[in-house]
Every structure is written in C-alpha cells, then in structure tokens.
C-alpha cells in the first residue's frame, strides 16, 4: 500500500515540476534580397546541332534572362556564377546542397533544355537549399524562337513560389516613343517586353499619339491620336494592325481606358470647355454618360471588379481625385491634401489608387487607399506623371522628363519603375525617349 502511495506521489510531483513550453514571438525579419543561385541550364547532348555555339549558349542565355529579371525586382540577389561549385550537367540531376549553402544560396534554380525537331523543351527545378528539397519543377515545350518568353515564364513561376504573389515578367509595356528636338517631337506607339527587349513600333509617327492603354486580353490597345488634327480615341488591334475610331463624338475624346472585362471603353469627351466621362460598349456601340457637371472630369479608371471608377475633377475648384459607382452615382471626393491630384489609376489588387501630385512646383508619384486614407508619396522629381500598375500591383511604371537647357537641349523623357514600398526605383531600358507607359497583364495566364 505504502509503495503504491509513494509511486503515485512521485508521479504527481514529477508532473507538477515539468517545464512549460518556451514560446518566443518573432515579429520582425529582414528585408534583404534573398540570395538565389541560378545555375545555367544544361544543354542535352542529344539536341540537334549540339556542336553549334548558339545551341550551347542557349542554356546560359535563358539563365541570364532569369537572373536579370530577379535582379530588377530588388527582392532577390542572384549570386555570381563564378562561385558555383557544381557544374550544370550534375546540378540539374540532384544538387549537392552543401556546396550551394557554402555560397549562402537560399534557393537554387537548375534545369536542362533539349532542342530537337524544331522544338525546344525546357525543364527547370527550384530547390530550397536550407531544407534540401525541391520546391517546384516544370517543363515547357515551345518553338526555339520563344526561348526568351520561356525564360520570363520561368521567372514568374519562381517569383510566385518564393514570394507568394504572381509575377510580372512575362508582360509587355506599351508606350509613346519620342524622337527629335523638344519643339518637334515625333511620337510613335511602341511596344516592348518589360525588360526592354523586342521593341516594335506600331505607328509611323505622322500624327501625335498619347495615352495608349492595353485591354485585359492584351491584343487591343486604345489610345488618343491627333489624326487630321482632330484628337480622338482610337482602337488598335496589335495582331492585325487594324485601327478604328471609338464612337462618333462631335468633339474631342481623350483619356481612354478599358473596363476590366474588356467590353467597354471609358473616356472623356470635351465640348464647349466642359468635359464629362462616357463609356462605350464595344459590342453594342452604345454610349453612356456617367458624369454631369460643369467642371472638367477626366482620367477615369475602373476598379478591378468593375464596380467603381476613380477619376479626377476640378469641381471643388482644385483638381482632386473622386470615386463613383460604375453607373455614375455616389460620387465621393477622396483626396484632400495640398496641391493638385491627377491621373488616378486603380491597382489590380483593388486596394490602392496611384496618382500624380503637383505641389510646390514639383511632381510626385504616390498611392492612397481607395477611401483616400494612407496617402504615400513614393517619388519626387522635376516632372513625372502617368503611373501604370504592374499586373500584380507591386510596381508602378511612369515617365520622367528632365529639364531642358535654354537652347532646348538636354531634354529627355524616360520610363521609370518603383516598388509600392518606395524602394527599387530604376530606369527602364528603351530604344528611344519614352512617355505614357501602360503595363499589360500577364501574357501566359
């Protein structure tokens, strides 16, 4: 009896002095770029023309495109290839993780390509070096000329797997290409990949063109053209090159933009010194007037769900940003800061509105919440405007002009991008001077 009691008592005591679980709250981390090793793709020896230098270099070229994409984000730090211990032919099979962690890589990209019968097959794998495991593995088959797009798609997949948000690399930017002196600028519509490659010109430069905007399927573009000195909104099919005037308005139409479903175009129509916002259904060609005010209402932009519209108006005396329902009701002013606000654009995520602000002779690109709160000015300069969102809502592209000298020299217009955190501001590569950028949605969805 005594023994049982002692045993029981000991067990109870033991339970009572057991240590509680230590919990530590980690509420902060670092925002340093993630070190990533991007190994060149291994070229399969069974490829056609394997001895051809171009074929051999293809693996290197694809990995360099991925590397350039990653470096441009500011979120990743692609490691120097000279430090890689494992060669691509072995690394793509099963990496030796110790070798990669030695060079502080946290993620590793490996892969191989096979070029056979005019088909390019590319496989890639993303590895978690710390966990010694594969994170994602995909294969693509395409025509060899598409290798650059495959590199962008691979970048998107890796970006999505590591950050949790969709990528923006397999996209294009349409803009107005500018050449010539400031007083006699030749402006053409131009389109390029987001990394500045594959530039194509869509118009000849005979007429002034402004504000090109993609539609959600990326095949159509709407823009303003001064054809025969009459400013009107046009629609251009990129694939066929066919253009048409949007609507039959007895005056100037401008600031066009597509609705999220691509079925409507929203724009401003000016007559007798007053401008209001209209929509036109591209299928039925029906026109609807949304605002009815004696002031200048312009720069409309739909919310991603198509239920709301933001625009700017000077109905309060100063140019400010307003929102309304897509039927034109429930108009609310959302900007109340000092200065003038213009070119509002609703984020694809739906949570922010980007804008240009003019205050004290300087131009700012900023963002605010859709109710007008939380205004943040991301960048300040002599002259900059026309922000456009990347398809994932993380970056803004806009254009910036430099001040010209007395003789008109020194003037430039360039495209810039900035992260919504205000970091990673960088100039985009363009063949000529550029303005009025518009970022497409992802080409491969």
């Amino acid at each position, binding site marked *: 009896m005594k023994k049982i009691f002692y045993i029981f008592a000991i067990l*109870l005591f033991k339970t009572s002095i057991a240590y509680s*679980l230590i*919990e530590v709250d*980690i*509420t*902060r981390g670092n925002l340093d770029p993630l070190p990533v090793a991007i190994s060149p793709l291994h070229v399969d020896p069974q490829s056609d023309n394997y001895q051809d230098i171009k074929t051999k270099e293809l693996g290197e070229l694809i990995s360099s495109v991925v590397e350039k994409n990653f470096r441009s984000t500011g979120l990743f730090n692609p490691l120097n290839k000279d430090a890689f211990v494992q060669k691509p032919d072995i690394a793509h099979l099963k990496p030796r993780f110790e070798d990669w962690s030695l060079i502080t890589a946290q993620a590793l990209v490996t892969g191989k390509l096979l070029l056979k019968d005019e088909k390019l097959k590319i496989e890639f794998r993303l590895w978690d070096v*710390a966990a010694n495991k594969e994170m994602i593995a995909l294969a693509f088959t395409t025509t060899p000329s598409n290798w650059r797009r495959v590199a962008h798609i691979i970048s998107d997949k890796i970006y999505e797997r590591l950050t949790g948000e969709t990528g923006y690399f397999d996209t294009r930017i349409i803009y107005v290409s500018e050449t010539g002196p400031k007083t006699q600028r030749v402006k053409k519509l131009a389109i390029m990949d987001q990394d500045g490659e594959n530039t194509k010109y869509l118009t000849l430069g005979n007429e002034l063109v402004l504000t090109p905007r993609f539609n959600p399927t990326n095949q159509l573009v709407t823009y303003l053209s001064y054809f025969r000195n009459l400013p009107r909104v046009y629609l251009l099919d990129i694939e066929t090159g066919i253009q048409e005037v949007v609507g039959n308005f007895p005056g100037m139409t401008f600031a066009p933009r597509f609705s999220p479903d691509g079925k409507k175009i929203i724009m401003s129509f000016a007559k007798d010194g007053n401008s209001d916002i209209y929509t036109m259904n591209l299928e039925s060609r029906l026109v609807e007037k949304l605002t009815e005010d004696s002031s200048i209402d312009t720069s409309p932009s739909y919310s991603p769900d198509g239920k709301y519209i933001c625009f700017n108006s000077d109905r309060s005396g100063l140019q400010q940003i307003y929102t309304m329902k897509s039927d034109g009701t429930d108009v609310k002013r959302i900007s109340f800061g000092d200065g003038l606000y213009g070119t509002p654009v609703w984020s694809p995520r739906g949570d922010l509105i980007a804008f240009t602000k003019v205050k004290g002779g300087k131009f700012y690109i900023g963002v605010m919440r859709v109710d007008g709160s939380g205004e943040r000015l991301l960048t300040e300069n002599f002259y900059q405007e026309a922000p456009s969102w990347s398809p994932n809502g993380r970056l803004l592209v806009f254009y910036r002009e430099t001040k010209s000298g007395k003789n008109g020299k020194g003037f430039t217009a360039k495209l810039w991008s900035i992260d919504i955190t205000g970091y990673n501001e960088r100039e985009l590569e363009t063949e000529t001077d550029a303005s009025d950028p518009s970022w497409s949605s992802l080409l491969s969805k």
Partner: protein
Amino acid sequence: MTRSLIYSLFFHAIMILLTILSLPFMIRQPIDLPPIISVELIQISENTNIPFAPKARKVLEKVKEEEKRVVSEQAPPAAKAKEKPDRIPLPKKQDEKKEIIKKKQNPKEVEPEIRQASEFEKKEIIDANQIAALIDKAKEESAKVEKSKNKLTQSNVKNSFASGLTLSEEDALRAQIFGCWTVPLGLPYDEDLLVRVKLELKQDGTINKSEILDHERMNKPGQKFYKILAESALRAVRICQPLRVPQTGYEKWKTIQLNFDPTEMLKG
C-alpha cells in the same frame, strides 16, 4: 474500520493537496505586466534588442556616457562572452532566478523594480523626472502592444515569467532569428499570418526536429501564402542554427516554440 477510514481520509487529503499544487491555473496568478519592467530590461544587458523610444534611448546614452561604471554593475559580468561568444550566459545562481520568478508571479510584489530605481537615485545618475519619462514611455509602448495584438501580449507575459529563458536570453534568440528570417513580401495584410514552429533542439543549439503546428492550413484553399510564410520560417531557423541557447538548463529549452508573425512589420 476506523483505522481504514482515517487512512482513506489521510490519503484523500494528500491527493487533493497534490492535485491543487500540480494544477497550473492554481499556481499561476493572472499577471498585469507592470510597465516598469521595461526599464529593468534595458539594464539587464547592453546587447538587448528590445526597441525603446528615441527619447528614452537618448537618456540612456547620456547615462552611459556619464557613468559607464554603474551601467556595468547592472549588466551581466563582462567575462560572459569570452569562452563561447555565441552563447548567452545564465545568471550566476539558479536560486536567484527562482526567487525572481516567484516574486513576479505576485503582481503586488514589485520591490525589485522599486529598489532598482532607488539605486539610481542614490547614485544621482539620472533624476526622478528621467525615470518617470522612461516609465511613461514604457507605458505608452506596452499599451500600444496590447492594443495591436492581444495574443502576442499574453504570450510575452508567459515568456517573461513562466519560461526557462531569461528575458535577455530570449531577446538574444529573437535577435538571431530576426537576422535569418527573410519575410516574403507578397503576403496579404488582412489575413492571420501567425506561423507556430515547434523545435526540438540538441544541446549545442542545432535542430533535431522542426514542426509547423498548423500545417493543415498549408493545403487549404486560399491559404497559399501560409505555405510560403511557413517555409520562410523553417528556412530561417535552419539557416540560424545553432541557435543561441543557454549553456545550461537543457531540459528547460530542449523544446521551444517560435511564433512567427510579420503582420506589424508589413503594416509598417
């Protein structure tokens, strides 16, 4: 019969007593964290990573410049890091720690803090107004923390008084993991971003086993971000190992839970 009854009553009484003693809620009193604790924290170690207000920081820097000797008296012995710089020394005597824990469990007994403040007053390092300024700041900060996330506040209380790590040890561990954790930036701000990682550690601080406690969330629809967040947390502890753990008291910290939550950081 009577004897059996006495035995029975005696054993039942012992059983009830033991049960009472062993039940956690009977020994843990609800604790209101006195704001003055933060003042004490700053004095524990010069390497502490707990953020404090710029005003308080200025006061402390001024104090350090004026009288470094006294600050070193408040800090742990200087010889702590010579043998193994990556380890955090425990206080000299286990008995002392037990005593402190016991006192902190009773909110009325705040003598250690008061005594510490009076020591400052005696040596005329900082005046009462400066102390008051620090305390006021600490009050403001603790109020903000409570307002922002009640769950974490409760957890902090538990960490401070019931865990096997001292505050500076816990702080050092936290600071180490801060440096290793690369926060994914595509996270939604309005979702629950808490990832609980349970670790089984070896005596040298390396990881024996790691486990995501809410791993079922990873495969739920609309919770894709959680998988990426959980992976980043696991990556952080793996990169960080060996973790900075005390040289002694292995039984206390061999199992540890890290609660990763970047909400405040992402909201700025």
